[in-house]
């Protein structure tokens, strides 16, 4: 009998745990349909960046409006510049379109900058038909005057505020760079997060030393990045009841199995879909099913967490001991 792959994530009952993570794939309806055909149980939108919206609004204000009303022959330079909206409209419209074009739930993703922005946009996403919202805390703390507690407090306030304002489930996507991740994760959960996504991948600029410039390059993930996720998924799911989704580094069916074994309720994949196309999702799902069947796991629920910190046969592997042993083995090797 084929194993039961169903799982729940953010209150959604999913046919299997492997979903497309936040990516530009959602911009194209055709791709979204192909993802649905490949069995995507839900779809995560790429993040709506409040900062980008604000910048564009102000840029439009400064560069489109600024030249108007100053020269007699040309009181403006653009066709009715109010006829287009600068704001989250296009993003929200895309949620509606995906909802209309497919049968799968949509999880919106949001990166805000102002407390008002987080709340406002999350509300708009819910109104547009998002089944859940992923709050993407994607910011580098660069201010020496703000201590770790302050950074955490700000994040928790956002979650509380959004929680109070919207009724749909909330996930929080975080980075691994929080001082006490379990403590912070628990606080997030108490503030209203229904799930945690581990982890977002920071855009890290490279340097072009020839021209003394920083250069932007989009690096796709590979399976090596999975280890960090497995590690923390295992720790957090052992200590907290909050469901976790693993995001980053899942390229093979075995990677997905590991993530679930570490305790994840869901697995987000992006890079492998960008590399191999939407149909790769079906392969991952089928591969997971085959692997589970071969090992006689009857369900995802049975597999979930078998290798987390609470249950794995060698808990020290999660903690400092692991580090020591690795070093020793290296010396010895």
């Amino acid at each position, binding site marked *: 009998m084929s194993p039961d792959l169903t799982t729940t994530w953010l209150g959604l009952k999913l046919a299997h745990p492997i979903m497309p993570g936040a990516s530009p794939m959602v911009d194209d309806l055709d791709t979204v349909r192909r993802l649905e055909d490949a069995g995507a149980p839900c779809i995560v939108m790429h993040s709506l960046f409040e900062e980008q919206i604000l910048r564009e609004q102000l840029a439009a204000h400064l560069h489109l409006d600024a030249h108007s009303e100053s020269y007699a022959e040309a009181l*403006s330079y653009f066709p009715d510049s109010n006829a287009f909206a600068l704001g989250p409209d296009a993003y929200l419209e895309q949620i509606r379109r995906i909802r209309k074009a497919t049968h799968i739930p949509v999880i919106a993703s949001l990166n805000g900058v102002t407390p008002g922005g987080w709340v406002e946009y999350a509300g708009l996403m819910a109104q547009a038909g998002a089944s859940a919202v992923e709050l993407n805390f994607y910011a580098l703390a660069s201010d020496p005057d703000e201590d770790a507690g302050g950074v955490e407090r700000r994040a928790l306030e956002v979650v509380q505020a959004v929680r109070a304002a919207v009724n749909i489930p909330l996930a929080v996507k975080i980075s691994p760079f929080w001082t006490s991740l379990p403590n912070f994760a628990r606080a997030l959960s108490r503030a209203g997060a229904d799930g945690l996504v581990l982890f977002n991948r920071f855009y890290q600029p490279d340097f072009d030393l020839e021209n003394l410039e920083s250069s932007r390059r989009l690096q796709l993930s590979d399976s090596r990045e999975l280890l960090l996720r497995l590690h923390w998924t295992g720790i957090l799911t052992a200590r907290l009841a909050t469901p976790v989704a693993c995001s980053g580094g899942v390229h093979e069916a075995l990677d997905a199995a590991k993530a679930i074994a570490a305790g994840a309720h869901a697995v987000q994949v992006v890079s492998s879909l960008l590399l191999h196309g939407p149909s790769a999702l079906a392969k991952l799902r089928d591969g997971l099913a085959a692997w589970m069947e071969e090992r006689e796991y009857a369900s995802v629920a049975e597999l979930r967490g078998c290798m987390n910190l609470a249950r794995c046969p060698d808990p020290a592997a999660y903690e400092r001991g692991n580090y020591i042993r690795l070093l020793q083995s290296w010396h010895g090797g």
Partner: protein
Amino acid sequence: MENPAFVTLDGNEVVASVAHRLSEVIAIYPITPSSPMGEFADEWSAAGRKNLWGKVPTVVEMQSEGGAAGAVHGALQAGAMTTTFTASQGLLLMIPNLYKIAGELTSFCIHVAARTIATHALSIFGDHSDVMACRQTGVAMLCAGSVQEAGDFAAIAHAATLRARVPFMHFFDGFRTSHEIAKIQPLSDEQLARLVDQQAIAAHRSRALTPDRPVIRGTAQNPDTFFQAREACNPFYAACPGTVQGVMDEFAALTGRKYRLFDYEGAPDAEHVIVMMGSGAEAAGEAVAWAAAKGRKVGLLKVRLYRPFDAHAFVRALPSTVKRIAVLDRTKEPGAVAEPLHLDVLAALNEAWPGALPRVVGGRYGLSSKEFTPAMVLAVLDNLAAEQPRNHFTVGINDDRTRLSLPVDDEFDLEPADTVRAVFYGLGSDGTVGSNKNTIKIIGEETDLFAQAYFVYDSRKAGAITVSHLRFGPRPVRSTYRIRHASFVGLSHPQFLEQYDVLEGAGHGATFFVNTGTAPGAFWDSLPAEAQRLVLEKQLKVYVVDGWKVAAEAGMGRHIGTVMQACFFALSGVLPMETAVERMKEAVEKAYGKRGQEVVRRNHAAIDLALKRIQRVEVPGKATTSRSRPPAVAEAAPDFVQRVTAIMLAGKGDSLPVSAFPVDGTWPVGTSQWGKRALAREIPIWDSKLCIQCNKCALVCPHAAIRAKVYEPAALQAAPAGFQSTDNRMVAEFKGQRYTIQVAPDDCTGCSLCVQACPAKDRTNPRHKAIDMLPVDAHRERERTNYDFFLGLPEADRTKVAADIRSSQLLQPLFEYSGACAGCGETPYVKLLTQVFGDRLLVANATGCSSIYGGNLPTTPWRCNEQGRGPAWANSLFEDNAEFGLGLRLGADALAQNARLLLQQLAPTLPEALVKGLLDADQATEAGLAQQRDRVAALRAALKGRQDAPAATLDQLADYLVKKSVWIVGGDGWAYDIGFGGLDHVLAGQWDVNVLVMDTEVYSNTGGQQSKATPLGAAAKFAAAGKETGKKDLGLLAMAYGHVYVARVAFGAKDVQTLQALREAESWPGPSLVIAYSHCIAHGYDLSQGLEQQKLAVNSGMWPLYRFDPRRARKGEAPLVLDSGKPKSPVREFMQNEGRFRMIELRDRDRYQRLLAMAQAEADRRWAHYEQLAGLKTPPQEQA
């Protein structure tokens, strides 16, 4: 019938609203000041707004007004109700079709924002010279004098033409009415529907050309029949005035607003009457009412229907008591016995006046929007009252040459005390005008007050000054002139106090409000003596705010319009403060809501903050300074600049008498150097140690405000202390010399293109480059001194300067400090042209941005070098520039040929070697040119003292023996659209002319209308949803001739190729075409990124670079060489950075994706095509 609620709109919008609702087809072409009418019509149709009959009118932009008139004529013949909008030169281009449309008795209405026709100079402002050039065409002419009337008469004209079959021209004064915002009653759909006669519409359609009941029109007739047939229309013209009056009466019944063919106002028993039409009649009405109230027997007759001129109705409208009439014409017809309205009045009286004819005099007023005030009206009335009234007078100017002008009491003013009169001085793009427009709408729509706003704009595009005139009062505002005694004067920039007499127009006890960074306590002492004197004399109440600080705190950058508006409401008390704040915030929401809530929030914050920061300045009882305003121009300026230019720069051009001006529109060059504007807040500061001496900063500077020089070390002896200098390391020809990059701190606009172009970074801190933008305040004084010294350093010897791009910047730019936008993408090409060929350059410049920044007074950027040589520049028209430039070539060649013939003729009397040298000179290089100039000097020396006529003529023409370079310069609107026919013809010939098309891919000067150069996918006016068709490939069309040198360049992407193309084009003895990518504010992004966008345009295949040289074909090589590689990035990367594309994505994502795919396909196709062409060789040809 109930009238709709009052609205506050400008004349163009009111007229367009009527025309759009009453038309099926609208064919247009942009021209100031009528462009907004076409733009409104296009926007409304694009948004699906329907006409009265439920159809969305079809709006089509044509390639010229001539084209629009043709399309209109056709649409009318096909039976559609059709309209168009135009002005000035555009109207002239429509004249042939107006004759046809009238000759065919076609119901049609054209709306004209009447504007000056170019004569000794172009002017975009208002008078009747354009409409008067149509009075003979057979169109009926109905003239509106106010915004209310413009809307009303638009409807009356549309209704009347349907009934009368005579086509109508409805006109109103450009700017004064087209751009004035006033509180008016609009016309409802129902009112319009009741006014237009459905049967007349059916009759119009029944006359349509259709194969279902064919007729033929446009036949050719002969002497036997033409005359009689021409007379056959007479009954229609005879009936037309009656029809119009009938429509006016119906209109009155519908709206309560009564009009007659000629409206009289004033004393019923008037003996002296002024006859005139247009907006001036409003001012005249005020003055006449005032004088009549004082018991003077004076009146005003306003002409509404000027053609057909109903002499009997005219006479009936005049009081029978009239003894003297002054007819005022807003046009000039040199050589005519009188101006047209004057002649019409004389003829009408002669025909219909029952008794002894009144005495009639005529005069001119208001040309090019010259002010026409009640004081001038009184001058006209006083003239009538004189024993011997002067005829053919002018009023409003001081004609000290022919002494035709009437004296005017400048102090006289009629403004009622209960009118709030506010004047705001703003700096273009600081939001002043936009906020004032909001203010007028708020007051117009929120109170019972009547409101009027008029905006006076500068002629320069960067750092332009705007003056807003706002009136609010309990009665409709008829004052069609600028405010002369303001109750509120607002300054958005304290610098104005140093430049203009801003307080001259303040009334007694007025509020004077300044945005300033100076603390209230120090403000009084900071004022120049003139301002202190006026504040004390007029007992002004002075308030200040640090609007920049408020704007910055609110996150609004330098956009202080909202701040100023809030302060106006707080200080003027026009509205209760709470209401005012609420309405201001609503207006912000309305204006910027679509920009996003953050923009709204910041504007709201600015309003709240501003109200807390206004501070009263305590004015001591006496002046505390003797410091006068600095002079408008430096003492070193030549006499003409001191006498004329300086007055214009100080904003007092109105005071200059006729004798101050050249009689034929010929002005001296090089005046922009005297108009220092100090616009930049940050200027580039040079670090000589880091500099690699590439000169790219100088190359890309749009205003020639950063320059490079090499000079002998000895020259440094007199250098000021802070002057930077380093060894010339890069230019071998000037080994041992010193090198300096110098900024002109008062001419830089702060665009930062130079810093963007600078490749030299500090390796320990790459944020620091060889030039950095730094605050001007810390550097102005030192750099000013440095720049003065720098200018005094000798210019490089042209014969020693190499032909490469780096060296080109050592040549003196003969185009400097123009009025172009900060960051302009056109002017670097123009400047480079003058550096390379400037001392022998003839420029024909098409109307457009380049003719405005190149030729708009008070100061112009073209200049000469130390030897007195430099570009000779002229603008003929928009449509004829290629032909005009060809004419310059033909003319110069004729004189050169003449000189050569004379030289040959006189050869026996001159040194043989000299003659031979002059005739056979190789002038391909600067050295060759210099030698030829030496020979010309030797020739002159040899001719000196000779009295014979051939020698004298040769002496006069000798300079033509030096090769002249003719360049035909203009934008894409000219080259791709209106002037294409002529350009094609000029390219098709063998003439040695060079064409530089500065392609901004849009009509930039008139505000961003699409041209055929607009790329696929871009939003532009008339392509609001994104252009569906690809950019016309002008270069490919020219290449098809085979003998035309063609290049496509982008200086920001590959400057070396730009210079190479210009040099090759110049050296090719046939026609050459260089198409130059020009980034523009109409592209919708921060122009400091212009160079990067040029690179992206090239790298994405949107703008491949190439040179097509017929010389290569002659050698059997492929004539086309591609100078940019295969596209490296998708066009998306280029498009996503520019607002013109991005707005499509925001409006309609699917459409954007589709257009993007089409644009990519287009770029791929274009590249594939060029690539194949570049491999195409033809057999070598014999040299022609």
